């Protein structure tokens, strides 16, 4: 019996814009098992980011139940949500969000600075392990502006991994990258998934979705499709099959 990492029922999110009420999510229900690699697809404005923000405990639903790792998120305070984000969730953003003028290793260490249980030496050790996992241990002292977009995103993934989260949430994490670099990132994500990490990956590119084990498609704040992917592509293979002319790092 696999463990349910997250379970949402009839999730709604409404935004008040003056008089008007924007219904970004209109009743979403699904659950994710440990070790799944899910992509959330949908056109721009369909509610993907809104959903991911709730899954990432950055936002609370207007209505509905959200259980993360068995904990009912709806009942938690702001500070408790911060603790959940720190201990259970790893975020990867479209624009990397690394601290400028701060070395790769220090960027990776950052989440552990907000965890008083982790000592300085352990923090440094785990940051190195994380950087190794994204194959950047040789760049640990590089600053963000000395790295390519792909490398920066890998640092961001290492940062997401350092607190051993129960799931990694990515919002258009390949949106700023060219095809080859996107595939490299997807190969890394697939590798992490094979090691057992649960991944929820928002994208609007079907190409990227084909690397995941399940795709949930949103339209207008509702799920219109939730399908297991019978034919998962390997990002590594896709990378090898790329025409040579595409080999420009982004």
């Amino acid at each position, binding site marked *: 019996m696999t463990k349910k990492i997250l379970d949402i029922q009839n999730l709604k999110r409404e935004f008040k814009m003056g008089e008007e009420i924007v219904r970004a999510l209109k009743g979403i229900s699904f659950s994710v098992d440990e070790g799944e690699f899910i992509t959330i697809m949908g056109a721009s404005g369909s509610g993907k980011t809104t959903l991911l923000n709730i899954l990432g405990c950055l936002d609370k639903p207007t209505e509905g139940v959200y259980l993360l790792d068995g904990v009912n998120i709806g009942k938690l305070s702001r500070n408790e949500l911060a*603790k959940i984000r720190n201990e259970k969730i790893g975020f990867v953003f479209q624009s990397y969000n690394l601290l400028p003028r701060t070395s790769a290793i220090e960027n990776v260490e950052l989440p552990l600075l907000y965890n008083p249980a982790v000592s300085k030496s352990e923090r440094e050790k785990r940051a190195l392990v994380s950087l190794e996992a994204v194959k950047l241990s040789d760049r640990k002292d590089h600053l963000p502006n000395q790295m390519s977009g792909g490398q920066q995103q890998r640092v961001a993934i290492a940062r997401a991994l350092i607190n051993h989260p129960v799931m990694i949430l990515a919002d258009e994490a390949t949106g700023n990258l060219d095809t080859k670099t996107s595939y490299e990132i997807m190969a890394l994500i697939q590798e992490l998934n094979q090691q057992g990490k649960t991944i929820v990956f928002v994208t609007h590119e079907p190409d990227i979705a084909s690397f995941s084990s399940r795709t949930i498609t949103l339209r207008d704040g509702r799920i219109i499709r939730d399908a297991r992917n019978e034919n998962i592509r390997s990002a590594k293979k896709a990378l090898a099959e790329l025409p040579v002319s595409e080999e420009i790092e982004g």
Partner: protein
Amino acid sequence: MKLTNLLQIAIRALQRNKLRALLTMLGIIIGVAAVIAMVAIGQGSKQSIQAQLSSMGSNMITVRPYSNVTVGGGARLDQSGLQTLTLNDIKAIQSESKFINEVSPAVSARGQVINGNKNWPTQIMGVSPDYLKIRDWSLKEGVSFNNENIAAAAKVCLVGQTIVNNLFNPGEDPVGKIIRFNKIPFTIIGVLSAKGENAFGSDQDDIILAPYTTVQQRILAIPYIQNIYAASTSESTTDSAVAELTNILRKSHKLKPSDDDDFLIRTMSELINTFSSTSQLLTVLLTAIAAISLVIGGIGIMNIMYVSVTERTKEIGLRMSIGARGIDILMQFLIEAIVISIIGGIIGVLLGIGASQLISIFLKWPTLISVSSIVISFAVCGITGIFFGYYPAVKASRLDPIEALHYE
């Protein structure tokens, strides 16, 4: 949240933008340096004035005649025209007083003093041998006159250093020489040690001391005395001595209870207090000016911290998304502000001490660096940091993580 982690976060954030941190500090640096230097100047001048005043004799009490009575068309009598103080007063004081150790009458005259072909305008003062004790004045050479000289109205004198410098060649021994004051010959029996200028800037060494009887009889031809100098048994008994003196003089002058005093008593400690409070006022004023610049420095911190919070909105969003609580963000910005103001404070203290040294070396102003001014400006720096860093920090901590993350 561990404090060491917060400190590390704040310090790393400052290191990422050293120039800005330095510019933010500038106001604090200047403010603190100004406070330290201003207080040093104020304290220095206070101390040197006090030292100068004590050089005039810190237990000294002076009595001069005084009258509110007006004559003719309402003009008050000049004090030299008043003849209320007499040698009987001195005798009364000597026999009745408990709080007064020494007492000396004083009569003085101005005139030209001549030695051979050299002459010099100066003052001769007739006193008793006690006068030297009252003024805490020692002899450089020779001996003082004694009671026999007083009784004989002897034509002997002690001369101040300025007189020696103006009437004698360098290296010449004045003791035993005869000088003439207003044509009357005086034998110099001693030379007074140099006292320098007094607090009012007049030269204390430009004086000839002689037995008061000599000056009374041979120069002024008066029976009364002009001033009384006395020394209380100690600085702390000065007030009792003054009260006692008042009683003795009122009795000796046969004043009725309804009569006003016909004399005026002044003490050195009074004078010291007057000057101290003047220089105290100076210190307060200078410090106030400096404190204002410190507040302006604090506002500078607030200003730049606000800009910094806006500029680093995305960073704040990221920190929140990886688990920073509102309080962590608040503490980070607060600590940044405090670290800035404390480092600024340290630089300011060093700069202030340096500036005070330069002032005393190049401008020759006395300065005194007080530990309390350093401690206080440090405390003010910390408080400034907390006070002016608090609102920007609160603003940062209240940001919505999602909005902050997507802030461009």
